[in-house]
């Protein structure tokens, strides 16, 4: 399940769906990203998130397929918000369920890392009345390459 949407999401609903994925599920790993007060800038009051409709969903589907090739993945649920977000808002959710905990952790972290460097989303930080397009971090590229 992959969703790109403006509206907020409820991780509890996603967790319930993962938990109901069958009696072989022993492990559920989830990640949620929130808008925090310091990114490239400090004093961040909000974000604007742009994406490339169509391509985004395709890229994320590819990441889930790749994760499923590498690890035991019973189900994966990914939500990414776009548009205007406020401080402390939820941005992204990645949840994976598996028979085994190592697989659940690895697949969840892999999808999250790869999403940051290959899915066409762009973040603009807002601090009061200034705006700043976030620069890609070398550290994020390194994290993604570490899965190769």
């Amino acid at each position, binding site marked *: 399940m992959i969703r790109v949407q403006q509206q907020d999401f409820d991780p509890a609903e996603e967790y319930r769906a993962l938990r109901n994925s069958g009696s072989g599920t022993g492990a559920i790993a989830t990640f949620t*990203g929130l808008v925090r007060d310091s990114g490239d800038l400090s004093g961040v009051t909000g974000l604007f*998130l*742009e*994406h*490339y409709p*169509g*391509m985004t969903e*395709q*890229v994320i589907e590819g990441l889930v397929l790749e994760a499923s090739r590498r690890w035991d993945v019973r189900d994966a649920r990914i939500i*990414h918000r776009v548009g205007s977000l406020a401080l402390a808002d939820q*941005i*992204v959710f990645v949840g994976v369920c598996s028979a085994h905990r190592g697989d659940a952790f690895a697949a969840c972290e892999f999808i*999250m890392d790869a*999403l*940051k*460097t*290959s*899915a*066409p*989303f*762009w*973040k*603009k930080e807002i601090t009061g009345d200034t705006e700043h*397009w*976030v*620069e*890609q971090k070398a550290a*994020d590229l390194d994290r993604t390459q570490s899965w190769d």
Partner: protein
Amino acid sequence: MTMATDNSITVKFFARLREELDTTTLTVEAQPGLTAGQLLRSLATKGGSWAQLDGEQPVMIAVNQVMTKPDRALQPGDEVAFFPPVTGG
């Protein structure tokens, strides 16, 4: 009104590029052998904020919604997108 012909290529821009070029979409004529990188450099010759497309900042390229390298040859009907390195998640 100009109809997009079978020979056209749609070009899209996103995020900082979209804002700085003040352009969301434009249409160009396909030319035999034209690559995505060549198209990018030809757009850079428009000058002004377009000049940045000529290597000043990294520009990522997708053709038909799949990330690609600059040497990818373009076909009539292709959708090409140019955008800054992605920063989601």
